[in-house]
């Protein structure tokens, strides 16, 4: 197989140039993407791309090389330059490949589906046009669009290491999304929704995606700015996932090791409410971040990160595991540590029940901004959603912020919904935080 050959050659070139260890990952990706606007296809993209990442170690000195050029002369020259650059890195006895090589086990993780390659382009174009048409038919106020997309990819990932690991697997993905605009006088209200899975069969239907996006846009008509207050905040699952992504940042050992996490030194401590059980699961069948092994060849695994509010562990690759005296959790990825189906365990109530049991509060359906200060856990976002009064959605609200501290937020999660869905690498069911600051007028 050509990818294995070029990965082997890259490792050989590194060793020949003086590396003590090396590994090479190749990715061959077939990509398709189309966009429709107002029932017409406006973009059609289709490509086959290749990329390779080579890591070279020279006695604890690490350098990496990424390239799209698989020609042998180019590869040999750049790998040599990479090994040369490694000599300027300070030797670190902790840097190096994993201690043992675990042969990749044959696993049926269901992360590759032939239906992605089989579905013909005309059907995908029709899906994109239908997203727009259904969205518009949902309500006469849907008059504009930011475009609806259908996209897929099929990849072959191959890893070869100088210690004898050699593994390869296929992965696929498909997605549909709609981004619609409702007009209300001279105001415009955008609404988006997307569905992603490892196969077309795993996606939510075109009707569901388009109607939810349209509903989100229409429901915002008449939105006003709320008064500033402290109250319970319910995070709908898509925005709840963004909060989980911040939590992942704080348990990412690469952040912890450089003092850039508010959870530093907190393993074994109660840092969340009893409802906070958070699991990272690299082996979850059909998971969007599932893989048989990580970018270092370490087997992926299921890791309980928080158990009923107690921080059990951080998530590691080989280097940061050694640095913090722990074993890799199989979360290495090119250039860092990644979440693998990192999720808050689902509760038993519906989102509607969470709303019904909130006398006065805010339901957040979208946030903008991205500046959680991981050192202190300070959290602040722009938001829009609904004011809840007497257990019901009273009116839409926008142009406000929600603020708090990740530590306090995790500590005061008092309800978790049952609507968990595994459509990304970090996911969450909807949940409620007992009190946060809502800043408006």
């Amino acid at each position, binding site marked *: 197989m050509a990818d294995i050959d070029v990965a082997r050659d890259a490792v050989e070139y590194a060793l020949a140039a003086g590396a003590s260890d090396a590994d090479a990952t190749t990715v061959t990706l077939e990509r398709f993407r189309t966009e429709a606007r107002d029932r*017409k*296809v406006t*973009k*059609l*993209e*289709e*490509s*086959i*791309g*290749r990329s390779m990442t080579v890591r070279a170690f020279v006695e604890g000195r*690490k*350098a*990496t*090389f*990424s*390239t*799209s*050029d*698989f020609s042998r002369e180019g590869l040999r020259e*750049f790998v040599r330059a990479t090994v*040369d*650059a490694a000599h*300027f*890195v*300070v030797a670190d006895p902790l840097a190096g490949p994993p201690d043992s090589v675990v042969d990749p086990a044959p696993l049926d993780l269901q992360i590759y589906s032939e239906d992605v390659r089989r579905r013909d382009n005309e059907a995908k174009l029709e899906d994109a046009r239908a997203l727009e048409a259904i969205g518009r038919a949902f309500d006469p106020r849907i008059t*504009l669009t*930011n475009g609806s997309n259908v996209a897929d990819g099929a990849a072959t990932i191959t890893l070869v290491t100088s210690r004898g690991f050699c593994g390869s697997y296929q992965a696929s993905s498909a997605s549909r999304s709609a981004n619609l605009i409702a007009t209300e006088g001279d*105001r*415009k*209200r*955008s609404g988006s929704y997307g569905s992603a899975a490892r196969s077309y069969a795993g996606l939510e239907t075109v009707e569901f995606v388009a109607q939810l996006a349209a509903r989100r846009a229409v429901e915002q008509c008449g939105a006003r*700015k709320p008064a*500033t*207050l*402290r109250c319970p905040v319910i995070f709908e699952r898509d925005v709840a996932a963004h909060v989980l992504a911040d939590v992942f940042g704080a348990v990412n050992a690469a952040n912890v090791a*450089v*003092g*850039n996490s508010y959870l530093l030194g907190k393993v074994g401590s109660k840092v969340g409410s009893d409802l906070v059980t958070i699991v990272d699961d690299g082996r979850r069948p059909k998971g969007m971040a599932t893989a048989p092994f990580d970018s270092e060849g370490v087997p992926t695994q299921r890791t309980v990160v928080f158990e009923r509010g107690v921080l059990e562990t951080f998530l590691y690759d080989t280097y940061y595991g050694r640095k913090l005296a722990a074993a890799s959790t199989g979360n290495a990825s090119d250039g860092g540590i990644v979440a693998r189906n990192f999720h808050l365990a689902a509760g038993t109530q519906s989102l509607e029940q969470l709303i019904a049991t909130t006398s006065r509060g805010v339901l957040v359906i979208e946030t*903008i*901004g*991205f*500046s959680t*200060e991981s*050192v*202190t856990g*300070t959290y*602040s976002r*722009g938001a829009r959603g609904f004011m809840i009064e007497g257990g019901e959605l009273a009116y839409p609200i*926008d*142009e*406000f*912020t*929600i*603020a708090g*501290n990740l530590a306090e937020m995790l500590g005061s999660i008092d309800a978790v919904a049952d609507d968990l869905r595994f459509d990304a690498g970090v996911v969450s069911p909807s949940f409620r935080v007992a009190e946060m*600051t*809502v*800043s*408006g*007028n």
Partner: protein
Amino acid sequence: MDVDAGTFERILTRALGAGDYADAFYERRVSRSYRLQDGRIHEAGLSLTAGVGIRVVSGECSGYAYSDDLSNEALMRTAAVASLIAKNGGERRIALPPAPATPASVYEGEPQLPTDSAAYVALLMRADAAARAYDPRITAVNGFISEELQAVVVATSEGRFITDRRPLVTLAIQTVANGKQRGNGYYGDGRRAGLEFYQERTPEDIARESARIAIVNSEAVEAPAGELEVVVGSGGGGVLLHEAVGHGLEADFNRQGASLYSGRLGEKVANELVTIFDDGNLAGERGSLSIDDEGTPSRHNVLVERGVLRSYLQDHLNASLMNVASNGCGRRQSFRSMPQPRMCNTYMPAGDSTYDEIVGSVKRGVYAKSFSGGQVDISRGDFVFMVAEGYLIEDGRLAAPIRGATLIGNGPAAMTRVVMVGDDPRLASGSYTCGKGGQYVPVGVGMPTVKISHLTVGGSAVG
């Protein structure tokens, strides 16, 4: 160049078919980077990005395909895939000049391939020492330096054939200080130049600024919540213009009626104190380009003049469909992506007020000196920007520093509330990167000190 004029002619001829327009974008980008962690060089990285992206436009529809395989067969196959959206037939032969034109350069120095590891390492180690020496409360110093050279060639079915060599250097330092709490500092600077840039702009300066911010943040109190008077700092405050106005003027959103600024050319969209330029021609600035990624020369664009909307940011596709000329804003992350209308360096020129007058006029408010970033919803116009260094203002004086807060506003509304503009405009230090549709490109921002009469501050301290 790995692809010659004859090859470009063949792939454009194959791609165009009955389409209206076709272009090919060749790129070869080499970069080097080094990471500093725990007082030592932790990692070195090299990367090579090389390939060709081919686009065919037919009416409002664009077909796109790319190839990192530069063989003739692979490129012809890629051209065929890109042309799938255009109707068959009507083959027109594309002719190009024998060699690509070279535009007037807006970069500093002669762009060179990055090579010398020792030079990068020395700069990072100087930064590390300076940050630690700044204050004993600095407990962690991390950083990176990168240098790249991107060579591009653009060939189009209209006969344009042009090349550019774009340098870019960036040095950024992140620090943590232990004070009342742990405080984070981040500061970087870069330019479209080579490493010699760091002779005048020393790594010590950059590291000390990062350490200073970390110390300030380690003493910060909770930010207030609610609508307040907000003074936005000169330089990095330009993120405000980028989010509140700039993105909303990108021609794709406006042609499709999706922006809050759609159909408003010639109308008043801001207080008359507000003038906003976007300029890709500023020598050496991070967002500058001799030509954009469609081969159009960069220029100075007046977006808003004394509060009146003057122009959108145009790329080739949207300009053609709107019957105007591209104004040099077609940019893309790499050969793997279609171009989009984007900003270059977005800034506001000087007003009349002094910094002291502006801060002195605020009874109770916030001074947002610099920002870590921002985001905007184009259709609604709601934008946020995140304070990296900020202070309370009490009775016309700076008071306690405040912890990272998000500020939220609505673009046109916020621009009508710009009530004072300072006489101290400057461009922010160069480390901003703008994301749109999954594509990231380097940009510049700048502004004088500005006062906004009221804006919602997203802290957690109520009352």
